[in-house]
């Protein structure tokens, strides 16, 4: 008898191999040596304590976004608007830092307030997408896309308008904050800050606990799978949907706040850096499991960081990481679809 676990492992690893084979073929077709490219990526992600730290730095927003998305996916919602929610988190955080930087508050308190403000910003932006869906009947995918554009526009306007650098506005963002308003890092040269790392891990743990073991998680799952039945069972349907948006938005906002206060120390145009979209991929790849979300996000972060130096060493674009990530998601999803189809045929159930 083909059991679920075995076929899952079989098809999962098969899909990964196909994705790798295809990437290899593409790299070879560009006239590069694939093995060398992979070696480079590995080297680029693990070669020195510095790059390894960078992997963790990029893991933080990715893990936060993924953790948030687990809630919306469980609620049956496609929160494409997460990019905008990250951006709004960053904007709110910047705004709080700007407003408080010249007050008597201690830097620690200012940072804490700014991070909270970032979470609030992301949450409000997510609630907007949620409200558009539940009250306006706008599908959350379209609403989210629209709100992403608005968020980007707002961000650019702030950077080039009210918050522009003294003198000339520039694509390099707003004026950096004073170093005492930077989240403390493990050492002076490193960008790795321990607090965000802990927060990201906590976010994943929270997702795990709430989704796997709480009544809220179970109700959210019912809403996601069959809202009408959930309603008849007495579950406040739209409230749960909004709550899942709010949670996801708060995590996304936190990611944005971390990018501002711990990584860039200022607001930059592409502050969300596509972490939201990558988070969607990670969530799909792990089949919405909170257990695997962390490790796979780490792998994706490593791919991203590892491929940065590809254009320098080889004549390859760093978007190779994106290609690998995309193929992985595509083939794993396809593999799983195929697996279910085969299983059904074998077992003879429709």
């Amino acid at each position, binding site marked *: 008898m083909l059991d679920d676990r075995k076929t899952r492992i079989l098809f999962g690893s098969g899909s990964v191999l196909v994705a790798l084979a295809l990437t290899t073929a593409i790299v070879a077709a560009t006239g590069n040596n694939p093995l060398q490219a992979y070696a480079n990526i590995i080297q680029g992600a693990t070669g020195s304590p510095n790059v390894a730290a960078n992997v963790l730095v990029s893991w933080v927003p990715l893990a936060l976004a993924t953790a948030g998305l687990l809630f919306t996916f469980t609620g049956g919602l496609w929160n494409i608007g997460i990019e905008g929610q990250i951006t709004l988190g960053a904007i709110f955080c910047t705004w709080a830092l700007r407003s408080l930087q010249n007050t008597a508050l201690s830097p620690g308190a200012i940072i804490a307030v700014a991070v909270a403000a970032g979470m609030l910003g992301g949450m409000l932006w997510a609630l907007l997408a949620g409200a558009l869906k539940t009250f306006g009947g706008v599908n959350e995918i379209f609403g989210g896309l629209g709100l992403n554009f608005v968020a980007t526009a707002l961000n650019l306007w702030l950077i080039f308008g009210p918050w522009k650098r003294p003198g000339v506005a520039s694509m390099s963002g707003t004026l950096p904050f004073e170093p005492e308003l930077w989240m403390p890092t493990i050492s002076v040269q490193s960008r790795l800050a321990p607090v965000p790392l802990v927060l990201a891990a906590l976010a994943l743990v929270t997702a795990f*606990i709430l989704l796997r*073991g*709480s*009544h*809220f998680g*179970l*109700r959210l*799952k*019912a809403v996601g*799978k*069959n809202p*009408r*039945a*959930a*309603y*008849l*069972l*007495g*579950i*406040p349907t739209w409230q749960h949907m909004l709550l899942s948006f709010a949670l996801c938005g708060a995590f996304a906002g936190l990611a944005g706040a971390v990018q501002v206060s711990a990584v860039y120390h200022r607001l930059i145009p592409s502050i969300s850096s596509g972490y939201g979209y990558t988070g969607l991929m990670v969530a799909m790849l792990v089949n919405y499991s909170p257990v695997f979300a962390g490790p796979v996000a780490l792998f994706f972060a490593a791919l991203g960081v590892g491929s940065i130096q590809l254009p320098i060493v080889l004549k390859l674009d760093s978007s190779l990481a994106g290609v690998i990530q995309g193929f992985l998601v595509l083939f794993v999803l396809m593999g799983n679809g195929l697996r279910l189809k085969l299983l059904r*045929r074998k*077992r*003879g*159930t*429709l």
Partner: protein
Amino acid sequence: MTIELRNISKHFGALKANDSISLTVPPGCIQGILGENGAGKSTLMKIFSGFLKPDSGEIVFDGKSLKIDSPDDAIRLGIGMLHQDPLDFPPFRVIDDFIVGSPGGIVPDRRKALADFNTLSKQFGFSLSAEVRVGSLTVGERQQLEILRLLWLGAKVLILDEPTTGISQAQKEILFATLKTLADQGMTVFFVSHKLEDVEALCTKAAVLRQGALVGSMDRPFDKAALVRMMFGREVELASKSSIAPGKKVLTIKTGSVDSIRLRIKDVNLQVRAGEIIGIAGMEGSGQDLFLRACGGLVEPSGGQFCLDESETPMNGKTYHDYMRQGVTYLPAARLEKGLVPGMSLAEHFTLSVKPKSAFIDKKAAVALSNERIAAFNIKGRPDSPVESLSGGNQQRTLLSLLPEIASLILVEHPTRGLDIESTIYIWGKLKERCTAGTAILFISSDLDEILRYSDKVLVFFAGKVTPLIASESLNVQKLGELIGGVGWDALEANNNA
């Protein structure tokens, strides 16, 4: 054509759903398939119609062995199946649902399909409108749509899995007459049912399944008692009627009216008291389901006053969840679509149905609760079984087992749809226990016997009009059938005015 099923076997894990079943059906035969819930009837029919693959066995048409790998293959061979739970497309318009499976190329000939649809629909006396959404139809109407679709696709063998549980007496008679005509023309019909009366009225032969095996078969005329013995392995007694003295007011409706696009119900005056069982009868689509939903806040009344308990404050405009807090529960007819959550297990359903003691789920308590409910409602399944893997009757038991502990008013559509005789008695036993504890029940049923047997009072709907409450002792099947068809209302109204 002569159809032979040879040694069909099918396992689900350790469970033998079909155990080497062999059956020969001559052309023009209406073959009844009987058996208790979970006996394996649907499984056998699904194998026959290509939805399931047997572990072993053969399907033979006129001596030729067939390979049926998919429902598509089956329909090409002329085998069409009407499922126990409708497999249609709720957001579609009726006509699009009708066309969707047809092999008519990329651009279907809508006009011809529409003409065919109307002709067929008229031939059966169905009153289906081609342009409404499938989702707005009642279960019975959706079954009708499916029958028309299969006939239109050229089905020569028609499999009906419990088709009579959602339709009215009058429609049933039309359906039976048509099936008989079709059989006279050489069509073979497989008719799965729990109702012996239906089998008696329609079938030429009957086969009985028990625990996956064929335990006997019989030709007309049927010995009902013998069939019941074959089905359950023992005699089954029908419950006797016992009424409870009605208690305090549970639901009071004053000049209530409810509107939908298709229908307007107006001037309903009704008082329901604790412990009462009120049966609601009427042709499909006469407004009874709309009315029942309005009694639970699922549809907003367009006028009048809907009051709960002894309160004088109307609940008009309140949501279902407000009603729930006052002890009202509604159980829908479309169980997999509206009542249960496919993809979730029995244990998860039970956990959802009780008030949580803390924010976190106590897994051990959940399993204990599941085992308790599974035993109490005699559900064939395990705590981790996904609801969609249960047999139809067991899904219905699950739905009923989700009723909250305390309820003042239960609104239920077709409470025993798809249940075998024994389970019907059992479930009504459970519902009556509730009544003894002070719960009132308002139920819709298309089974007149069920209405007369279990209700204290009856409401009849006809085209949006509603009778006053009629004591069920003063009714019989004949009289009730007439009222449902719109006959005898004048006398009733004259009586009422006098």
